[in-house]
């Protein structure tokens, strides 16, 4: 039996070396992230198109409470990236208890962010903003606002679920430190997308 067949014997196929010296799961996550970045890029460009082409685009966000709320949400999300880094480092260093604790602190931050975001939505809905109408101007404002922030919120909720599943699996030995690291990439990406959503959707529409 040749060496190749000996390698195949148990696994059932020839395994090529990873092209970038990273686990395949990590490469898949990177590919997902760049495709998702392009998706967010596309909807932010579409938003810019509509805002530029609409003469009566509303500027409804007052410093208090909207911008203050956004500042708090930004602080929470960026801080959750830091806690996720600490979790990843702990997992890589073999400190399982600390890794799980910091991952769940990240999850709690994500839940808090989502709750603040949903409360912001309800406030705007209470002021009369709907998908295709609002009391201030261009009816497309609601569609773009809810589409962009809704897609981001979906990513946050997805990340909260994924991190919880991976942390629990890591605790039971089903997943390893690589899985924590891979999902931390996703979480950081969600944080970075928010860096573009805040100026485009909120800060360019502040009420002066």
């Amino acid at each position: 039996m040749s060496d190749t067949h000996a390698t195949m014997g148990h696994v059932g196929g020839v395994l090529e070396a990873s092209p970038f010296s990273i686990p395949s799961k990590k490469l898949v996550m990177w590919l997902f992230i760049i495709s998702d970045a392009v998706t967010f890029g596309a909807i932010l460009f579409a938003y810019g198109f509509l805002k530029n082409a609409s003469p009566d685009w509303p500027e409804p966000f007052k410093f208090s409470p909207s911008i203050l709320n956004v500042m708090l949400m930004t602080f929470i999300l960026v801080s959750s990236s830091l806690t996720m880094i600490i979790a990843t480092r702990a997992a890589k260093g073999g400190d399982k208890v600390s890794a799980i604790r910091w991952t769940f602190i990240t999850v709690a931050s994500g839940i808090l962010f989502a709750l603040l975001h949903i409360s912001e939505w309800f406030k705007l809905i209470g002021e009369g903003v709907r998908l295709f109408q609002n009391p201030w101007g261009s009816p497309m404002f609601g569609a773009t606002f809810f589409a962009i922030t809704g897609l981001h919120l979906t990513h946050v909720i997805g990340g909260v679920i994924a991190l919880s599943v991976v942390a629990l699996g890591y605790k039971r030995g089903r997943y390893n430190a690589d899985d924590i690291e891979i999902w931390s990439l996703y979480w950081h990406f969600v944080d970075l997308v928010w860096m573009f959503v805040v100026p485009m959707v909120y800060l360019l529409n502040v009420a002066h």
Partner: protein
Amino acid sequence: MNTTDRMSSRLTADIIVYICILALSGVQIVLAYQHAPGTQLLVRMLAVAVIQAALGVTYFMHLREEQRSLRLALIPATIFVLLMMNMIWSDSFRLEHMRPLIK
């Protein structure tokens, strides 16, 4: 430098990056209240956001520690696609100037 020292210095670097990203978020809010013309404001805001994203991808996502081939496979293609999307602006301005009943 032993492993503990190395991990500690990396965490210090991460905290510095974290503070920088938060500070840049503060800069964006200051910019928002400076009454700059729309296009200038957009460019400044996006410039700050790009710096934040670059810091996050480089340090938080550790892309600088990956092989150069991975960086070359991911970054130029993404930037190229995002730049190509800028083609929409001409149509957006056309709509602005050809809008019926514009004053």
